[in-house]
Each structure stands twice: as structure tokens, then as C-alpha cells.
């Protein structure tokens, strides 16, 4: 795979930073940069065939609707689900979880039920469940992780002895890079009668999301972590849940017949998509999937793994650097440097054109577990090269020298 040619498809790298440096972007786990094809698809829609979807019977509306709906098929194929009608568009992973919780979870939870999350969840996959549990007097518990940052399966089996309604788990940790064995978790949860929600926000860019194998009941991801636009994502629902659960939101486009006191709701994913959708966003998501489809799966994995291993190895050699989580990981490394706060690190990296992330990464319970207030984090995308890793290590050494 020719990384230089892939990188050249991302216009942001054609310019220098305000301080005259090459941009080294190491925060793809937060949000990925966009290739020209995604940007063109969005502006192509606005300038070429803009109209609302599912309503007008004139040509731009028809083209907009067909293009919009074709993305549903692309998503269905990309995450390997049975039918495109199980894919509902939302504004992102966080929105998907909130909507699912509000429309479905709070109606199906019973007092005393248990909801399981893991200690490595992003706040987005924790706080909405917490609120639902408070409302329904249900118990939220965390599946512990071991020293290496991996799910403790013995503890999970013990926890599942209590009546559990939902298990909600991330496929890949945004802090530790841990790749969870989702199939094993769903098998255990289903045996105990619980439904499983999978947060695929991090996993989606790794081309490893496989709903059929995982047997997830619900799954969500955001387009912006897949080189697509912000403000759009999906919620997948297994079997016929799309038609069984209450609509995620109410309004135009999701109804059959409307009276003053009663209304009927459509079948299919449109049942949940009230109001004008983020049409440009969905079309951009389609272009993002097309872009990722051009990257051979095996080489994509190899490339990200190589960068991660190289960074891990070089980081481990630096005195005073402590890496969180397992050695086997997907594209993300969180670390601390003795005596230097992560925010001070990221400021110095910024001076050299290197974007790294500092903070609690929306995972405060995990920070508490590792007893650190914050960490620095680097994460890799398809446009990163070995040179980026070397620059990162060089700047880290310089910053250490400055602070010593």
C-alpha cells in the first residue's frame, strides 16, 4: 500500500501549520481527517442535486433520495448485517445510544434489573445507561478489566448470574486500544438472557466490525471516525427490532396517518428518522465507505499495527514513560511521562506541528482505575507513516529535555 499516495488524497496535509511545520496528525481516534472524495461528495450534493429526501417527486429529490438510500446498503454491507432496513441514521454514536436508551431501554428495564458496562467505556456508553438505571431503579455495574486492560471474563460470568437486561460494551477501547472479544461477550450475555449493545466508534475504521459474527443486538458508529463527515452515524438493530421498538424520534417522515390524538408509524428504518435528515452527511458517509473499500483489509491492518508496534516499542525505551493497557492493541497508545502533565506535552507537540491528545479521553472511570488524572494519547490513521512516529518520538525526547 502506497501511504504517500493515500496521504495525498487528504487536502489538509498539503499545507503547513501556522508555525511553518508539516502537520503530523496523531489524533485519529478522536476524529479522522477527510479525503477529497468525501469533501467532493458533500459539495457535489449541495451544488449538483440538492433537495430533501423522501418527499419531492422532482428530479433532484429523486436523485438525493436514491443516493441517500444507497448509503444504507453500503453501511449494511460494510458492517455485515442481514438487511439495510436494520440500519437507522442518527447524528453519531452518542446520539444513537441516547436515542436507544430513551426510546427502548427505559421502557423495557424493570426495577432491580442489571445493566452491565465495562470499566473501559467512553462516557457516551456509560452516562445514558446510568440515567436509565436511575430512572428505573435498575443497577448499573462495571465489568472489571485486568491489569493488562482486558475484560475479566470470570468476573463477567459471575456478574451475569444476576438478572441482566443489557450488556453494553465497546469493541475497541479509545484509551487502551484493547480489542474486546465481542463474540465471546455476546455469547455469554445471550445465554443469560441479556441484549448486547456494541459501541463500534473506534472499531469502524479498522474494518473489523462484523455484526453477523458478533451477534450484536444493537450497534452504533459515527462517520467522522471513518474519514467521513461529522454529525452523522448509524444505529443497527437486530432481527425485527427496528419495527418493534418505539420510534427513536417523532415528527415528519416517520408517520403513516396522523390525527390530532393518534398517529400511526411507518415500518422500517424510516420509522425512526423524523424530520429532514443530515442528507449531505449520509452521502459523505457513503463516500467514506467507498474510500475505505479501496484499502485492502489485510494491508490496512498491517499498516496500523506496524505503526502502533513501532511507537509502542520506541516509547517503552524512554525512561519515565508509562504506557497504559495491553501490548496487543488497535491503533491507540495512551501514556504518561513522569513529571510532565499531558497538557504541557501536547502544547510542546503542537509547536512542532504534531497533534496529540491530552486529557481523560471521556473515560474518567478508567483514569480513576489507573490512578491518573489524565494521559497523553497518540492514535493512527491510514495517512500516518513511520516518519510520523519518528517525529513524535523525537519531539517527545526534546520536550522531556526542556522540562528536566
Amino acid at each position, binding site marked *: 500500500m502506497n501511504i504517500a499516495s493515500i496521504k495525498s488524497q487528504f487536502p489538509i496535509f498539503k499545507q503547513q501549520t501556522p508555525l511553518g511545520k508539516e502537520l503530523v496528525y496523531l489524533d485519529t481516534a478522536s476524529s479522522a481527517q477527510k479525503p477529497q472524495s468525501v469533501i467532493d461528495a458533500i459539495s457535489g450534493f449541495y451544488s449538483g442535486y440538492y433537495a430533501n429526501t423522501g418527499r419531492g417527486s422532482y428530479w433532484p429529490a429523486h436523485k438525493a433520495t436514491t443516493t441517500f438510500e444507497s448509503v444504507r446498503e453500503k453501511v449494511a454491507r460494510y458492517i455485515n448485517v442481514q438487511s439495510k432496513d436494520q440500519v437507522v441514521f442518527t447524528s453519531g454514536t452518542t446520539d444513537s445510544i441516547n436515542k436507544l436508551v430513551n426510546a427502548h431501554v427505559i421502557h423495557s428495564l424493570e426495577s432491580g434489573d442489571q445493566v452491565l458496562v465495562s470499566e473501559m467505556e467512553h462516557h457516551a456508553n456509560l452516562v445514558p445507561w446510568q440515567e436509565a438505571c436511575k430512572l428505573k431503579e435498575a443497577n448499573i455495574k462495571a465489568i472489571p478489566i485486568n491489569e493488562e486492560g482486558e475484560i475479566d471474563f470470570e468476573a463477567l460470568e459471575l456478574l451475569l448470574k444476576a438478572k441482566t437486561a443489557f450488556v453494553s460494551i465497546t469493541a475497541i477501547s479509545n484509551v487502551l486500544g484493547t480489542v474486546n472479544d465481542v463474540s465471546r461477550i455476546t455469547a455469554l450475555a445471550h445465554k443469560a438472557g441479556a441484549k448486547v449493545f456494541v459501541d463500534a466508534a473506534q472499531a469502524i475504521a479498522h474494518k473489523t466490525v462484523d455484526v453477523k459474527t458478533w451477534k450484536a443486538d444493537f450497534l452504533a458508529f459515527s462517520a467522522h471516525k471513518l474519514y467521513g463527515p461529522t454529525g452523522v452515524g448509524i444505529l443497527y438493530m437486530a432481527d425485527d427490532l427496528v419495527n418493534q421498538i418505539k420510534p427513536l424520534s417523532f415528527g415528519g417522515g416517520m408517520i403513516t396517518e396522523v390525527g390530532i390524538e393518534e398517529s400511526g408509524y411507518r415500518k422500517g428504518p424510516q420509522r425512526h428518522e423524523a424530520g429532514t435528515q443530515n442528507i449531505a452527511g449520509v452521502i459523505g458517509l457513503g463516500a467514506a465507505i467507498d474510500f475505505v473499500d479501496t484499502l485492502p483489509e489485510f494491508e490496512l491492518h498491517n499498516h496500523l499495527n506496524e505503526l502502533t508496534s513501532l511507537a509502542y516499542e520506541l516509547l517503552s525505551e524512554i525512561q519515565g514513560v508509562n504506557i497504559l493497557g495491553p501490548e496487543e492493541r488497535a491503533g491507540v497508545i495512551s501514556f504518561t511521562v513522569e513529571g510532565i502533565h499531558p*497538557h504541557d506535552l501536547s*502544547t510542546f507537540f503542537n509547536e512542532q506541528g504534531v497533534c496529540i491528545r491530552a486529557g481523560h479521553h471521556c473515560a474518567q472511570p478508567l483514569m480513576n482505575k489507573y490512578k491518573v488524572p489524565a494521559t497523553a494519547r497518540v492514535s493512527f490513521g491510514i495517512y500516518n507513516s513511520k516518519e510520523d512516529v519518528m517525529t513524535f518520538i523525537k519531539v517527545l525526547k526534546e520536550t522531556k529535555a526542556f522540562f528536566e
Partner: protein
Amino acid sequence: MNERIKGLYQEHILKKSKDETFKGVLQNETHRLEAYNPMCGDKYTISMSIENDVIQDARFDGFGCAISKASTALLTEIVIGKSVEEIKPIVENFLELVDEHGKREPEEIFEDDQLLAFAAAREFPERKTCASLSWDELKLLVDTH
């Protein structure tokens, strides 16, 4: 970052961030500032005893980056022995110093190098809240006292 400010940053902010002279909690505390940035997790408490509108003593505790720690340590050191009225203009000046849109040049605001070092925050607008975290809380106190 201009070389002089960079020099001041290295000399004063790093030094101050390790200065624990006024670290702790006062037994006879009358007022307490809680400075917390939920976005990054930096968290400080400043314990003060105020009598007759004069800050008799102060201590700080907490954790965060070098800039927030140094600015909190310096704040604590500066307020001790001053009246609320005396502190008001210092707070205003400090908040202007760290603001990239501040009207005056840093050197027109303060002469003291320890304070001037925080003008580095003008170069990193995303770090302004680190420098102003505790000072914003102090402003609330002096404005309402």
C-alpha cells in the same frame, strides 16, 4: 512563542509549578475557592482566611498541568496580606495578560517576571484556561465580596 517569553516560561512557570511553599489547607479557613476544569480534569482548592476584608493567609492544593499549577501557586502567594480591594486590579490585569485579545502589551501590564511569564498563554489560546482557572474563581470572590 517569542524567545523571551519562552525563556520566562521555562524559568518561572516550570519552577513555580514545583513550588509547594503554600501548599495545604488552612485550619482557620473562612473562604474556599474550587477551581475545576471538567474538560481536562485539572482541579485545585484555595483555602483562605479573610478578616476585615484582608486575606490573612492562603494555601492551595490539587493537581493539573504546569501552567495551572504555577498560576495557582503564584495566585496563593500574591493574595496573602492583601485586601480584597488591592487584589481586584491584579486579577483584572492577570486575566488581560493571559488573553490573546488583551489590549495592552504584556510588558505594559506587569513588570514582575514571574507574572509576565504567563503571557506565554497568549501564544497558546487553548491553554488560556489553564492559566486563568484559579484566577477566574478569585475574580468571582473579589467581585462579590
